[in-house]
């Protein structure tokens, strides 16, 4: 079997719009790229539980608490689902978690920002899940079957989260002066990091290369970012939030909103580990993972013990 032949056959399948399944032939680079991207996605879901988890015990009503708990549980479920999908590529969850802990694997930068007031729970649902959806809708057409199917399933829940987040913001904007101030404060802090979730401008990170050729990535960073801005600005104005960007303006000829300059220095600073919560988020995950070791050991010991018993009885 000639590798070249197989690679070209693989590329032809991609070009024909076929899904690649775990047992199918795939180039090493394709496998590696997917493992990196899918494990990062899974870690993001799991680390993302922390900023919202920060408000569970202070949620201001029973209904709010129930919605928040269920939402965070959904995110954990997304993490599980994505870990399983990534495992079909031949890496274990334990390995992925180790890579997270050593810093080899990343998670979304957005979760290195703190959730400081109750409106942050609204802003995270509305803006962060909202930005994630734009990206994930595009990934529904990604070429790797298990990833594409995971995205279809996950997107349904994400749009639910986004609506619930927006509902919190809307309710607070209709509330007291204090509540309105909280909502605007949350908007001011989450808007720019949400825009950075789409990554560098196309001019700095051209939409080309293997990920595009392999149809893992279907749309460019700026295209996706623009979609997010276009759908979000009107939602903000509808409930009386001020956009924290004085250059936001409808551009008639483009049919899109123009926006101001993104602070890429901040983006790089946070990616390099110097965001407000990088250390806190990772420490949290490592500490509770280590603290749970005796429980996992016990479950394993019990399983082995009783597997032997079963064998003896049989």
């Amino acid at each position, binding site marked *: 079997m000639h590798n070249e032949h197989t690679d070209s056959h693989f590329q032809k399948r991609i070009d024909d719009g076929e899904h690649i399944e775990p047992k199918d032939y795939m180039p090493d680079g394709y496998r590696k790229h997917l493992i990196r991207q899918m494990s990062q996605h899974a870690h993001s879901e*799991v680390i993302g*539980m*922390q900023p919202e*988890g920060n408000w*569970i*015990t*202070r*949620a*201001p*009503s*029973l*209904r*709010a*608490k*129930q919605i928040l*708990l*269920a939402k*965070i*549980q959904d995110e*954990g*479920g997304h*993490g*599980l689902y994505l*870990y399983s999908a990534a495992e079909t590529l031949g890496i274990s969850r334990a390995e992925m978690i180790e890579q997270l802990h050593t810093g080899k694997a990343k998670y979304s930068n957005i979760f290195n920002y703190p959730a400081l007031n*109750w409106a942050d729970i609204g802003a995270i649902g509305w803006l962060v899940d909202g930005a994630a959806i734009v990206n994930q809708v595009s990934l529904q057409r990604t070429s790797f079957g298990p990833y594409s199917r995971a995205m279809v399933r996950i997107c349904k829940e994400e749009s639910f989260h986004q609506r619930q987040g927006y509902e919190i913001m809307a*309710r607070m904007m209709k*509330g*007291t002066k*204090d*509540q309105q101030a909280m909502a605007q404060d949350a908007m001011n802090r989450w808007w720019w990091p949400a825009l950075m979730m789409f990554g560098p401008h196309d001019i700095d990170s051209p939409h080309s290369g293997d990920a595009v050729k392999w149809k893992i990535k279907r749309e460019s960073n700026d295209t996706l970012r623009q979609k997010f801005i276009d759908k979000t600005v009107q939602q903000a104005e509808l409930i009386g939030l001020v956009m924290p960007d004085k250059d936001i303006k409808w551009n008639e000829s483009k049919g899109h909103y123009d926006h101001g300059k993104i602070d890429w220095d901040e983006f790089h600073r946070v990616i390099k580990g110097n965001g407000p919560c990088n250390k806190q988020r990772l420490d*949290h995950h490592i500490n*509770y993972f280590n*603290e*749970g*070791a*005796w*429980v*996992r*050991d*016990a*479950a394993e*010991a*019990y399983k082995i*013990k009783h597997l032997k018993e079963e064998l003896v009885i049989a």
Partner: protein
Amino acid sequence: MTKKEELYLYTLRLGDNALILSHRLSQLCSKGPILEEDLALTNIALDLLGRAQALLKYAGEIEGKNRSEDDLAYRREEKNYYNLLLTEQPNKDFAHVIARQLFISTFEFFLFQELEKSADTTLSAIAGKTIKEVKYHLQHASDWTIRLGDGTKESHDRMQSAINDLWMYTGELFEMNGIDLDLLTQGIAVDTIPLQKKWRDCINSVLNEATLFVPKDTYMQTGSINGVHSEHLGHILAEMQYLQRAYPDAKW
């Protein structure tokens, strides 16, 4: 005390148990030993929260002072809370979380089967829904008790310590006062005395399979039925009620 007041306080007590235990479990979100377990504990917290909402809403209706479930949860002070001391005990480690759940879910397994027969149709309906959930909670807690008890030396010791530490709070499960006795004669409340033996048998058999000892009978702590709590409840409420107390005019 009128029958209405008695029913209000009885319902409130059931609601408070669900609310405070749910709160304790919700504190564990993103801190589980494995992701699956994180989700399982959150599931139980959500079941309990749903139960608390239903019971507190009903308590507010009985009281007839226009207080919602949120008013009762967020604007009531410590001494007017009636949850069991066991529900407010801290998440010291995973073994304590499981032991607490085992004791409570075993009790609730029997309690809600009886409450389903209550002459009060709302309590009966809530009990009917609850019993399905509690079966799962009990299964989960029993499975982990057995796994940890019969796992490694460390897990065995931790599980035994948790059982020993929390044992003194289990006497309260079966306590009754005048309210219970009055409502019992009306076929509304549950007689918890006969549940005690069933509970003991069930706990004995799980601990036995888990290779754990049943603690010797000790002094049993009491107080919650009269609104007297451990120091922990004040902290739970301070955190839980923070926004409602700090912004009394706000609607969330």
